[in-house]
């Protein structure tokens, strides 16, 4: 078989779909592939297995495994715009080597070595710029795929993937490009470009001055590429990955909670084991409130009852006698007022406001429990309303609670809605 560049390219061209499948399968296992799998793919696409070996597209390893040589990995990654992402250290090593070359360059006096160091620096910077460009695009592509979830992975797996990418790829990549980070490639390239900028005029030899000009222009353009990639990471990639992570976490939690509720209903989980949001218990503290004079009054009455002689309760000298009684006249006044004010949205509040209006006129403001309960008793006079006004009232209790602050008691009562049912 005549093996040359043209025949290899011809093979790749004729079997493009096969090569794409081979690359995709191999990429999942770090470009190592089992012989059996490899033969299956060959059979599927009717590609002779031996040709692959002859063209050295695959290389035999131990344990019936084959691998794709790195030259093919790079070429095919570029061809399919699909890049393998080794861990961040593989990117960081460029930063380290660029820094090392630069340190050597500023100390070097020998012209030939200076020339070689400049060439090495340019080649290293070139590889670095390509790798960050590819990596940013690859991360963006994979993050978008994760967002649209074409491979139908569950939300927990999405959380896991997004967190892993953020922590191991996106943030380290951002750090290496970060302008403010003293150890970033940005800082390194700035130092190189400043040095090259001076040396392109100052260096003693003309041809090396030209080399420095190339290094200066090259490092400048790579700084721009680094900044462009960092902008993509900060404005698009990181927020997108963070959003996928956050959304998937919420969905994982929501679905897990709903499934837990189902388990409790089926008796597969105890209700006490169900996690809960710690909302505050809305029920009131169990207040038991007494009238201010309750204790004294009780004591007084008890003492009198223990005496043999009969006694009469008299108002004390400074006690103004409250002459308000819920007699027939008062009762009729409130009944009429209630009919006039219908529909009433909040009955107990109406009782309080009505009493307040009456007592404001009398320049006396002590609305106590006794008065309030007297007026509230109107609620239970359905038949009287029917007889007196020939109407029927409709009373609706709502679960909402209303607070009424009386002179001697704070009441929490239900909201009651009253309207005319029939006339």
């Amino acid at each position, binding site marked *: 078989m005549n093996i040359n560049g043209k025949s290899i390219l011809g093979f790749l061209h004729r079997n493009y779909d096969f090569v794409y499948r081979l690359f995709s399968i191999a990429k999942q296992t770090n470009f190592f592939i089992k012989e059996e799998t490899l033969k299956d793919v060959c059979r599927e696409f009717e590609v002779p297995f031996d040709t692959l070996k002859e063209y050295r597209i695959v290389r035999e390893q131990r344990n019936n495994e084959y691998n794709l040589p790195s030259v093919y990995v790079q070429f095919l990654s570029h061809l399919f715009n699909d890049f393998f992402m080794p861990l961040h250290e593989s990117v960081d090593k460029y930063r380290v080597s660029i820094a090392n070359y630069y340190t050597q360059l500023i100390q070097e006096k020998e012209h030939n070595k200076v020339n070689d160091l400049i060439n090495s620096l340019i080649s290293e910077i070139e590889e670095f710029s390509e790798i960050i460009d590819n990596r940013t695009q690859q991360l963006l592509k994979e993050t978008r795929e994760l967002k649209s979830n074409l491979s139908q992975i569950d939300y927990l797996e999405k959380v896991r993937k997004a967190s892993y990418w953020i922590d191991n790829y996106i943030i380290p990549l951002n750090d290496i490009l970060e302008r403010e980070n003293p150890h970033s490639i940005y800082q390194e390239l700035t130092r190189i470009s400043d040095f090259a900028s001076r040396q392109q005029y100052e260096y003693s030899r003309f041809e090396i001055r030209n080399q420095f000009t190339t290094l200066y222009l090259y490092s400048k353009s790579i700084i721009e590429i680094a900044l462009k990639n960092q902008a993509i990471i900060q404005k698009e990639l990181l927020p997108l990955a963070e959003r996928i992570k956050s959304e*998937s976490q*919420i969905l994982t*939690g*929501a679905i897990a909670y709903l499934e837990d*509720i189902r388990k409790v209903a089926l008796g597969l989980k105890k209700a006490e084991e169900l*996690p*809960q949001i710690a909302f*505050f218990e809305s029920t009131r503290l169990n207040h038991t409130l007494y009238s201010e004079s309750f204790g004294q009054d009780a004591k007084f009455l008890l003492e009198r009852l223990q005496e043999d002689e009969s006694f009469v309760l008299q108002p004390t000298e400074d006690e103004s006698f409250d002459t308000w009684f819920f007699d027939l006249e008062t009762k009729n006044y409130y009944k009429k007022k209630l009919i006039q004010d219908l529909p009433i949205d909040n009955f107990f509040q109406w009782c309080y406001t009505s009493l307040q209006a009456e007592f404001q006129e009398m320049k006396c403001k002590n609305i106590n429990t006794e008065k309030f309960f007297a007026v509230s008793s109107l609620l239970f006079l359905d038949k009287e309303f029917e007889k007196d006004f020939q109407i029927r009232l409709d009373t609706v209790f709502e679960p909402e609670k209303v607070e009424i602050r009386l002179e001697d008691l704070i009441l929490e009562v239900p909201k009651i809605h009253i309207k005319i049912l029939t006339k």
Partner: protein
Amino acid sequence: MTFETPKNHYEIVNDLLKGKFILWNEVYFDTLMKEQDFYKAFFKESFDYELVVRKEFAYLLSKNTSEEFSKRFTVILSILCYEWNLQGRDIKDRIENGSFSVFEIQTLLENSTYSDIFKLIKLKEEGIEKFLKELDQRNIIKLDNSKETFEFTKAVSLFFEFAKEIAESKLASTKQ
């Protein structure tokens, strides 16, 4: 000894004890923020409750949580998250910035894949409106005047945190 209290003391204490979230845009939120040391000590010493003051809201935490309320709220929001995600919406963004029709919510809950779980929280007799009213009273949502649409307040972030905690524990348990 005179007992001096910050301005709006009655409203602050009363609202918090009712289980209400005091939001950043309420009149007495500033007082609460400024006097948070006093109020934290006040609730701790008086009732053994923990007061949580955040940038955007404040609320009381108690050891005895209203199980039913918490369950209903979490179930409803969980189902809505699930359904909105199926519709391809960004759920967090939608909840934080959207306005919702009570009718739409009701329909979504009743027709959800999780409608059986919605039925389990027994809102049938009183209906979703009553529950939303309670959420409104607690400042977790804001119903508009017509009571037909509502928006979530910042207090909803407690739900997101809760869901994320569950997710984290799931993640941790699958790692083991």
